């Protein structure tokens, strides 16, 4: 049986070549400046300094975070009642509704986003609002499904018990249902916030290309400008911010569970 362990060797080679080395390449580019054709690398923080000293870049970063946070909040506010109401239906209806919500997710994200363009032509909307609608449309199903899953797992006896002990429906919800569905909200946040921060086709397809988020900035530096060093540095900054916010969310969750 131990010899079966050897079956993992080919993939170890694969991940070294296609995951580890490419990740090292990003670091290498982010901490050097253009013109390093020789194998001598000059370590520098210039790319990061350039980003942090320029107000335009900081504004882009701020806008990306703001839009991602608002999108995530909207998904919770719209998605929670939906998940809650679905969980109240009888079992057959629940299955159908969850199927209806997952169905559009199978359609290519760009195609789904493009679908909004025609509708949006009827209204005079700001680029930012269009981006919000596009993001909520794309990411809301994840939030609903995560919250629904945690609500469906919930032991119905707990609710009956709370009611028997004299809690009114609002108290039952606030003291029993809501706290027990927090893990679902947390995993929903992870699934919405992460792609929302880094998304760059939603602003481009719906914002008409004049609205720049951090993903668009990275794209510009890789595809148009060809300044891979600076592009790599921006993507590292973005990855760091995402990592930190994920860490904080998990920590908050853990603290909450302990209380």
């Amino acid at each position: 049986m131990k010899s079966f362990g050897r079956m993992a060797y080919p993939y170890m080679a694969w991940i070294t070549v296609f995951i580890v080395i490419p990740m090292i390449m990003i670091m290498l580019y982010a901490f050097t400046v253009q013109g390093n054709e020789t194998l001598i690398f000059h370590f520098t923080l210039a790319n990061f300094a350039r980003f942090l000293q320029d107000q335009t870049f900081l504004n882009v970063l701020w806008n990306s975070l703001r839009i991602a946070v608002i999108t995530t909040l909207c998904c919770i506010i719209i998605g929670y009642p939906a998940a809650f109401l679905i969980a109240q239906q009888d079992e057959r209806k629940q299955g159908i509704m969850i199927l209806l919500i997952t169905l559009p997710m199978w359609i290519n994200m760009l195609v789904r986003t493009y679908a909004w363009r025609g509708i949006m032509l009827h209204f005079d909307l700001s680029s930012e609002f269009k981006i919000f609608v596009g993001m909520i449309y794309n990411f809301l199903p994840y939030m609903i499904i995560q919250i629904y899953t945690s609500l469906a797992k919930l032991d119905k006896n707990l609710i009956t018990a709370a009611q028997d002990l004299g809690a009114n429906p609002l108290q039952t919800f606030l003291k029993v249902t809501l706290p027990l569905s927090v893990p679902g909200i947390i995993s929903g946040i992870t699934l919405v916030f992460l792609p929302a921060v880094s998304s760059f086709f939603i602003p481009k397809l719906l914002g008409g290309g004049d609205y720049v988020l951090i993903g668009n900035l990275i794209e510009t530096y890789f595809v148009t400008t060809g300044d891979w060093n600076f592009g790599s540095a921006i993507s590292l900054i973005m990855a760091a911010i995402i990592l930190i916010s994920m860490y904080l969310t998990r920590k908050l969750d853990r603290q909450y569970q302990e209380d």
Partner: protein
Amino acid sequence: MDKKRKGLRFGSGFYLTLIMLFFYVPILYVVVFSFNNSKSLTSFTGFSLMWYEKMFANRTMMESIYYTVLVAVIATVVSTVVGTITAIGLSKSRRLVREVVTQINNLPVMNPDIVTAISLMLFFISINMKTGLLTLILAHITFCIPYVILSIMPKLRQLDDNVAEAALDLGATPWQALTKVIIPQIKDAILSGALIAFSMSFDDFVISFFTTGPGINNISIYVYTMYKRINPSINALSSLIILVIATVLVIVNVVPMLKNRKKREIEA
């Protein structure tokens, strides 16, 4: 009391209807306007199939469908085979090895797509590999395998090691133990891993965008390049995709239902 309950039920139905409308109106809108007889995306001027004709006549568009399917099929087959072999291997590896590989394996899943995408692009270009179909397929295999492994590992952990040991003790070759004992037990997990891999590959935009070369576009990249123009052929393409997916999902969901009913009828 009864009135209140009725009101609640109405409110809940109303809210869920609104949510469903939000999800389905854009899809319906696209399908309707794919049959429009003018270029307008706002007013329906009459029925025609011209955008479908234009779509089938558009070589770039047809090629993008071809490449999407080709890459998804290759990536699914390779990642399912490699993922299955690796998952079984890892379940019998030393703990340290398993931990390290799992952590690295999680990187493409946890990282934003754009980071995985540019890391691969930088890698391909630095080793002087011309970006194109091959780099696209390699990139897809790379981000698909982790999902296959993630879907098989939990199932493997539940398996009783003694069953495979018993097979070996009873004279089965390791190959027989693998194909007759282990794989049949994790068949469902392999299948769902393959399904996830296929849909990840079929839908991917970001990683494809950065790792492909000139002339090789998938559907996502094609739609993206249309961001400035209004091209109702995309509505036709979208409707086609919606039709295919709806058909597949209905078959997948309805066939088991019918089977169950038949079973019940036979039992009754």
